[in-house]
């Protein structure tokens, strides 16, 4: 098997550089395997975050030849023979060391999501939900929190200052999950539009393109949320309908 030419980002918050490594290719490997072999044989101090090696823990997120990807789900045979594989840390988040970034931004934003506030129980003391009422949310729960969608989103990738008022696609699917929940009584639409930057998303769908779980983040979460905001805020007919019929989808909901 021919050698693989690998460029790895080595450095920390004080700076860094791309370092070349040459390593023998092996059949059936993924990029994470190559990184581990480099770590084992040539760069024992290389920092890399990983866990399951099965595309389910979301730990080994990085950028491979500029594309946000999971290292454990990117096979080495997709590259042309002789092509250099460049592996860099996620661009959107502060560097800790080498391929490891500080993704705490996402968890800080997650803390801001108003939790499920269920409506009162039925007379028999139970909650009842039907499958068709929770189908949509189940897609969102496939999220493995790899934060590749957050990484690729240009709103914060190219404009760090927007992090102060932009939750990002991973959080938007969390909001969508809760907003569409059949039992929930919290109305997060004002929060989303005013504080969490839903309006800043210009739906260029990069989050959907990089999602390793193939969640239709834009079509099934962000756009439906935007449409709900339109109905709640910008649609005079919807407003009139609510006034006349005294009801709406948010009739049992309270704004947070």
């Amino acid at each position, binding site marked *: 098997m021919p050698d693989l030419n690998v460029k790895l980002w080595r450095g920390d918050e004080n700076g860094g550089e791309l370092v070349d490594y040459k390593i023998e290719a092996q059949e059936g490997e993924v990029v994470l395997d190559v990184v581990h072999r480099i770590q084992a044989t040539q760069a024992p101090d290389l920092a890399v975050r990983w866990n399951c090696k099965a595309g389910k823990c979301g730990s080994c997120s990085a950028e491979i030849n500029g594309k946000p990807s999971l290292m454990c789900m990117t096979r080495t045979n997709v590259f042309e023979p002789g092509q250099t594989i460049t592996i860099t840390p996620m661009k959107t988040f502060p560097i800790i060391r080498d391929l490891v970034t500080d993704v705490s931004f996402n968890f800080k934003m997650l803390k801001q999501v108003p939790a499920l506030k269920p409506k009162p129980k039925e007379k028999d003391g139970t909650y009842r939900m039907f499958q068709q009422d929770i189908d949509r949310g189940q897609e969102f729960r496939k999220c493995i929190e790899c934060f590749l969608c957050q990484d690729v989103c240009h709103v914060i990738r190219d404009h760090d200052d927007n992090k102060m008022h932009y939750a990002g696609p991973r959080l938007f699917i969390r909001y969508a999950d809760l907003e569409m929940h059949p039992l929930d009584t919290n109305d997060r639409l004002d929060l989303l539009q005013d504080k969490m930057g839903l309006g800043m998303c210009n739906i260029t769908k990069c989050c959907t393109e990089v999602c390793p779980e193939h969640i239709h983040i834009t079509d099934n979460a962000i*756009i439906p949320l935007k449409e709900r905001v339109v109905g709640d805020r910008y649609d005079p007919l919807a407003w009139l309908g609510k006034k006349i019929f005294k009801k709406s989808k948010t009739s049992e909901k309270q704004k947070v």
Partner: protein
Amino acid sequence: MTTTNTETDSNNSFNNSAITAVEIGKPKGGPNVKTLRQDRWWIQPTLTFIGLFLFVVYGSWAAIRNNDYYTANILGRTIGRNYLSPFYSPCIANNCQYTTVPILGSWYKLSPAIIILIFPMGFRLSCYYYRKAYYRSFWFSPPACAVKEPHKKYSGESKFPLIMNNIHRYFWYAAVLFAAILTLDAINAFRFPNGSIGMGLGTLIFVINAVLIWLYTLSCHSCRHLTGGRINLFSKAPIRHWFWKKVSIINPHHMLYAWLSLVWIAFTDFYVYLVASGTIHDPRFF
């Protein structure tokens, strides 16, 4: 420079007026280059730009042409076809070659297409797919995924003028009306002289045009929301749930329908122009 948002939610419980402290400006890893992508990421935005630019050029020419958009009687000859260009339908001015509804009087001297095209243009400009297309290929925001955009500031659709894209559903209401009118035009294309029913190549083109326009209109994200997407309890709204599921089948192909309908509507207009101007003869199947 590292700065911290001072609006801190100290007890970590939700507070509408507070955002948890977010550190910004800390050093990032990786080289400071536009992109490290090695694939030909620029092809898609380039093709999109070319496609939309060509349509704008053609559409402008078709709109100001103000001639050869109706085939029934032209230059004293009876062509015997009932084809009205979709760029001019419904024709609402007195100066139309074929007036659908006389709304604008003789004072209106411009091309009747200019009035009509405001609605489909608004629908497509505010369409969720076309927004992605022009943000990427015209405004480079971003030109492609993980490719650095050139703008220093970004506010997206949270401020004027882009916040106006929220008007999309109103253009959708108009688009449904236009799709119905283009369907009538397709039905009229089966009408031949002396009250006979027939079908020419143009009839087939009009039918395909109506089908594509309906597919594009019904696969719209606003349609998906209005038919049922806004509902949380589908179990209590089975009919709307049924509609929502049907729209959800075609919604993922919205981009495809957007392009097909765009190209085909221009082709339909051009075909009508060729027939109306006597450049080609429309073959009759039966």
